[in-house]
């Protein structure tokens, strides 16, 4: 029978199916780190369900030796909600992409987040449609030339984290496909959070949008291009001599040059706090985009709020307490009845 969770390894979460992503795809690293973190989190394979929609990222469940459901385009959040509502003991993970999650599935993503269903959502953002061979996506930059936009995209892109925060997400984080340790840290935090955990993973598509995240993936560049968020620590980043801090004034972030060795306390640099009740602070962080700002990575927001599945269970228990377990005969005989002899 099942091996005790403590003795499980990555292999116990790896299915026998051949992984079929393109060579060099960022998805490999995400898969490997999910498979690695599962035993570390004490998960049992039978308690885990991976749910996906359609797209390159959505092949993910086939490669996990857990329960898995590869559903239809954009609707994975709705399937996941049904699974979690049906059995709250399951650990439910939604795998989606920028097209699946934010184009065709934008509505469902909005609603699973606002309901705060206790699931973990991994949105692989490569800013392009891969499986349909290279069209622009809702996160593609303005001007991006693709097969469907030969003159350049004229759609204003959406930032996945701003979207999630707009729906009052209780846990929001960003990580990057090449940084194994950081990814696992964020996955762990997501699993520990009760409620919807929304994670944007910057992911490279070597075939249709190569090097989109180069400055965040490259070890040298990312020191200046990124900003590692740490709860209780000031928002400071940059290599020696190019240190910069973030000041947030009336909800608007500004880059403050600390290269001359200025004292961060006198420069009024913001101190990261994951637990702000208002999402406004995290929204300010999410508005920080390249190239004007270093791109924040880490946990933007983690606040406690009742979950949909938790409240659903509670309502059921209350209904049982209030009215006693339902009796079918009594139900069919409620109200006016009459007997013919």
């Amino acid at each position, binding site marked *: 029978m099942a091996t005790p969770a403590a003795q499980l390894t990555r292999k116990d979460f790896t299915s026998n199916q051949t992984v079929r992503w393109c060579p060099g795809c960022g998805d490999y690293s995400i898969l490997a780190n999910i498979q690695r973190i599962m035993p570390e989190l004490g998960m049992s394979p039978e308690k885990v369900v991976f749910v996906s929609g359609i797209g390159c990222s959505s092949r993910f469940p086939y490669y996990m030796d*857990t329960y*898995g459901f590869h559903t239809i385009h954009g609707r994975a959040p709705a*399937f996941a*909600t*049904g*699974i979690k*509502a049906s*059995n709250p003991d*399951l650990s439910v993970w939604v795998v989606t992409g920028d097209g699946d999650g934010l184009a065709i599935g934008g509505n469902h993503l909005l609603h699973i987040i606002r309901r705060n269903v206790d699931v973990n959502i991994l949105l692989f953002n490569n800013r392009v449609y891969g499986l349909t061979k290279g069209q622009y996506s809702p996160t593609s930059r303005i001007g991006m030339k693709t097969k469907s936009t030969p003159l350049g995209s004229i759609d204003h892109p959406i930032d996945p984290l701003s979207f999630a925060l707009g729906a009052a997400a209780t846990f929001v984080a960003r990580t990057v496909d090449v940084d194994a340790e950081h990814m696992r840290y964020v996955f762990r935090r997501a699993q520990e959070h009760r409620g919807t955990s929304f994670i944007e993973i910057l992911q490279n598509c070597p075939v249709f949008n190569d090097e989109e995240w180069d400055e965040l993936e490259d070890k040298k560049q990312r020191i200046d291009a990124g900003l590692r968020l740490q709860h209780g620590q000031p928002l400071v980043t940059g290599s020696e001599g190019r240190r910069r801090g973030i000041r947030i004034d009336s909800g608007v972030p500004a880059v403050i040059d600390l290269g001359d060795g200025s004292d961060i306390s006198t420069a009024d640099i913001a101190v990261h706090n994951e637990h702000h009740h208002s999402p406004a602070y995290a929204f300010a962080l999410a508005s920080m985009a390249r190239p004007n700002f270093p791109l924040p990575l880490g946990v933007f927001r983690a606040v406690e709020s009742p979950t949909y599945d938790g409240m659903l269970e509670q309502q059921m228990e209350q209904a049982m307490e209030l009215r006693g*377990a339902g009796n079918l005969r009594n139900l069919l005989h409620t109200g006016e009845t009459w007997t013919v002899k």
Partner: protein
Amino acid sequence: MAEKQLVELEEVAIRFTGDSGDGMQVTGGKFSESTMLAGNDLSTLPDYPAEIRAPAGTLAGVSGFQIHFASRNVHTPADQPDVLVAFNPAALKTNIADLRPGGTLIVNQDAFKKRALARAEYEENPLPELHDRFNVVELPLTQLNRKALEDIDLGSRDIDRCKNFFVLGIMYWMYSRDLEPTQRWLRGRFRGEVREANLLALEAGHAYGETTELLPSSYQVPAAKIPPGTYRNITGNTAFAWGIVAAGVQMDRQVFLGAYPITPASDILHEVARYGHFGIKTMQAEDEIAACSAAIGAAFAGSLAVTCTSGPGLALKQEAINLAVMAELPLVIVDIQRGGPSTGMPTKVEQGDLPMALYGRNSDSPMPVIAASSPGDCFHTIFEAFRWAVKYMTPVIVLSDSYLANGTEPWLIPDIESLPRVSIPPPPEPENFQPYRRDAKTLARPWAVPGTPGLEHRIGGLSTEENTGNVSYDPDNNERMMHLRDQKVAGIVADIPPLEVVGNEQGELLIVGWGSTRGAITSAVEAARADGLDVSRVHLRHINPFPANLGEILGNFRHILVPEINLGHLPRLLRAEFLVPAEVMSKTQGKPFKVGEIRQRIDEILSPEDDS
């Protein structure tokens, strides 16, 4: 005072009509309840506008409720009411054409003032000339009601709102009804002055009926001969909701209902949402797609899953339903059909979704389709749908329509012990588990639910390898799986009892019906047979698969007629499947068939010499 007469009648049909705000549905509902308690058989038809409150007094805002009751069996709400109660000129204008010639028209004469007549687009008062054709009873209802409630401490608007109960009181006197059940309901429903006002209005109306010389007779419709048992009034949508509850109880599984509000299906969600104490979970989703998707997710996780909708919603759900076909998960989809296409007539009846239910998904996507044929039948139909869903691991579509959804009939409450207890097969052993290994008899795959150790597996919408369930693009495997899914659904025929012909086993004319046309067809065929005509009928509950003996039955008749509230869907299926000359009888007015319409068509077919 002249002596009043008590007249015995075999059957009566009454239609209550007024403005949407006049309380016609409540009035009709209460009259139905007291009629049932009096032991009559009955059938009702509410008819209300799609607009919640159209401008008061306008033609668009008229709401109606028809009830047909008798001392014999009743199959329809009747083609023509014998009595029309019109609260205002607009109600009169939209309904008078239906009143039986010589029938009784009861109007609130206080409402026939200049402005109200103008709102109903009458140039002059139509009542005087109606006296020639109908027994017109003009009553100053507004004044009578105000007088009766003069001691009540309420504003005149609230007082006037009680006049439907004043009228109900009059009708209770006219048809020898007991006030008590309605009084009990009013006491439970309202408080304070409003309760007193409504109670007083009801009693005053009754007393007025007893004393006024304008109403010389009251009537008695003796109790019908009805099979013994305990009965209640039920609408189709309530019957569906209770059928859902019953399935959960009898199968001992948690029920999950995902739904999105849509007329005329929302009442199923409302009703089921009240039964959390049965362990039922309901979710109002963000849209139709999510409602269906969440239900499929719940089915994967082991719940008895159901989603309910109407035509436009079914169109949206189809991609998700197709996944349930491919993933072979149990799911019940309830479609309360309504007038279309597009938004159409949301509150009116149509049987327009049969092709969509059968063929509305990409590729070959076989799925059982069953149809309820009366309000009470909805209970048994959905129960059967759940049994098929779990036995064969398949989504099942249940068709109803707005006529069944809101219509009522007396329903013999089933004995719980008589309902089949369905045991769902236990999860398979982990040893050599394969998610798509089929049961040799039913071809169903196992229901392996997340949380069960050793049965971890992946399913999805991609082409699936036989037995293992792995993704496969193997051409032969794809073809085999296509046929397996098809054979599985076709094999359900083993669970379908032989279709019974009502009438001769062979002959000139067979009427084939499905769904809510049963009542009208039954009455028309009964009448025609009583007149010696060679006409029989069958009524289909199971449309996919068809009952095994349907082809043989069809072959025994010269003419086959299919009355349908669409432009002809079932005849195409019958022709394609059985190569028989099935003839269309179509109606798409948003109204059910009248008995007379079907009877006339029967006469035309069986008396061809009149066609010249």
